């Protein structure tokens, strides 16, 4: 491992720790400001005697000063204890692991599909700059970027579930069956529409970026030279232009993790897909503070990993930057 790698890892580790600390404290303070009363959230309007209420308040530490509360939450966090979920009555970690896996599958497939589709469309559009394909792709991107993603989800639900009847509406598992009994096919059938929605929405930024980059590259001098040598058409793009665009496009796709997560929250709500986004909404609506805090932290880790991978791409994979490193040494 050379010095550069060591510095990179060290800087990233410090950044990660500081950022997570900041996110943990920030989100905690925000929820602390809210008028949510943990005792009321727990009781759900059940009637209890004042003495019992005092006991509950002591149990949750309602009247402790803010610093004590934050300290308690952070020290528990360091031990990997995120508390117990109010609505599911199980440790927050368990809820998050289960739900996040479901969301991860959804986000992973959407990420892959939108990446390939977006890159492909961008290349086709950029190659035919000004043509009808280019205009069509641009229009598509423009509309998809401006449309609320949950509305796209609703339209897809109307078309494929209601009108065509190909897929079930809502509920990731049919009513009356336990989730563990559902076959892999049933599960996949419920995965298709959310993935489709998230992919269609995710295509727009990457296609637009790829298109603009390709247009830039194609107007450069070395492409002109390549054309002068007699190269043209697809081989020209494949040999001269593609490598230059692929890496920044991939980097952008990694940086899109936050958008991906946000999209998943809305799409899961539309299709009642039991992922982390739906859980976050339920936690927020039902004042499950511990669960919501846990999800915020996990989402921040997720976004950080995306940015980290983008940086890794940039620093270690990009041959231009690698070359520079050798130059620096000599």
């Amino acid at each position: 491992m050379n010095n550069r790698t060591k510095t990179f890892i060290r800087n990233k580790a410090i950044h990660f720790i500081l950022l997570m600390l900041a996110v943990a404290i920030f989100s905690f303070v925000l929820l602390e400001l809210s008028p949510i009363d943990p005792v009321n959230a727990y009781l759900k309007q059940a009637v209890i005697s004042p003495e019992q209420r005092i006991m509950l308040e002591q149990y949750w530490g309602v009247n402790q000063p803010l610093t004590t509360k934050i300290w308690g939450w952070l020290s528990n966090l360091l031990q990997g204890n995120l508390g117990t979920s109010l609505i599911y009555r199980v440790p927050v970690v368990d809820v998050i692991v289960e739900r996040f896996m479901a969301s991860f599958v959804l986000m992973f497939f959407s990420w892959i599909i939108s990446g390939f589709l977006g890159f492909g469309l961008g290349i086709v559009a950029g190659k035919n700059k000004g043509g009808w394909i280019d205009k069509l792709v641009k229009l598509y991107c423009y509309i998809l970027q401006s449309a609320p993603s949950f509305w796209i989800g609703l339209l897809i639900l109307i078309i494929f579930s209601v009108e065509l009847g190909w897929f079930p509406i809502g509920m990731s598992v049919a009513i009356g069956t336990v989730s563990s009994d559902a076959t892999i096919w049933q599960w996949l059938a419920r995965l298709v529409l959310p993935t489709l929605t998230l992919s269609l929405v995710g295509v727009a930024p990457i296609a637009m970026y790829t298109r603009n980059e390709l247009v830039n590259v194609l107007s450069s001098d070395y492409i002109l030279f390549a054309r002068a040598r007699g190269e043209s058409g697809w081989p020209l793009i494949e040999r001269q232009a593609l490598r230059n665009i692929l890496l920044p496009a991939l980097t952008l796709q990694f940086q899109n993790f936050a958008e991906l997560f946000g999209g998943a929250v809305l799409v899961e709500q539309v299709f009642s897909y039991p992922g982390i986004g739906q859980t976050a909404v339920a936690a927020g609506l039902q004042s499950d503070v511990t669960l919501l805090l846990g999800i915020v932290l996990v989402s921040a880790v997720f976004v950080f990993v995306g940015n980290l991978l983008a940086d890794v791409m940039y620093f270690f994979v990009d041959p231009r930057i690698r070359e520079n490193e050798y130059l620096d040494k000599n």
Partner: protein
Amino acid sequence: MTKTEENKQGFLNLNLRTKTLLVTVIALIILVSVFLSNFLIDHQAVLTSNFYNINQAPSFEHLFGTDWMGRDMFMRTLLGLGISIGVGAFASVISTVVAILLGVFSSVNTLVDEVVTAIIDLFGSIPHILLIILVSLAFGGGYYGVIMAVGLTHWTPLARVLRAEIKKINTSEYIKLSNEFGKSKLWIAKKHIFPLIISQIIVGVILMFPHAIMHEASISFLGFGLPAHEPAIGIILAESMKYLSMGYWWLAFYPGLSLLLLVLLFDLIGENVHRLLDPQSAQE
């Protein structure tokens, strides 16, 4: 002049600048009339149930159809768009103030700059929709919660642009010269920096609108936003989900489409204003 060039000029014999201006004004008139229509429509009449014509498909009488309480969806959508514009405007004002303050603060010294960068970093590290949920909960939800949440989370792009821009201007020769001449910092800020960033601010505000509107709709859709009796687009769409399986597609299709058009109009205005204010493209 060739034939095609003549054709291009044919549109009312206007140059690009006037054309851009015309399109912008038309878009603006549409937006303003949508917003003003809210004050002319009798809310009570629109939102009162009428069980004679429930769940009707779109027709000439009811352009967007009617819902399960017989309310005209076109009118409800119009009211929803008005709410969206209102929330968007208010949120944009808050976000702009925050962005300007932080952008200007960051030029004070490096320590403040680091702090501002860290705050921008923090806001960018949580998925936006979760951040909005957190902030709206912090403000106790409801109308107030939504406006504050949308307003306090959309300033990051503009703040980043302003910070970079001010930094760039501050290192330029004529600012140094102005310093040498003994002008005060305030004078320099007012005479040299402000005129250069004002166009960035205007464009930033207009382009903030679509995001704010979309996030307001999203968060209302999720159930955190406005109370359920308000005719906000997000609430209309959330409500429509219950009736989709019965085939009442118009409940979801038209309100969403209207929102999309609204967002596109704001985008159009933003881009055009940018083109008009930016000296490099204004004279094309």
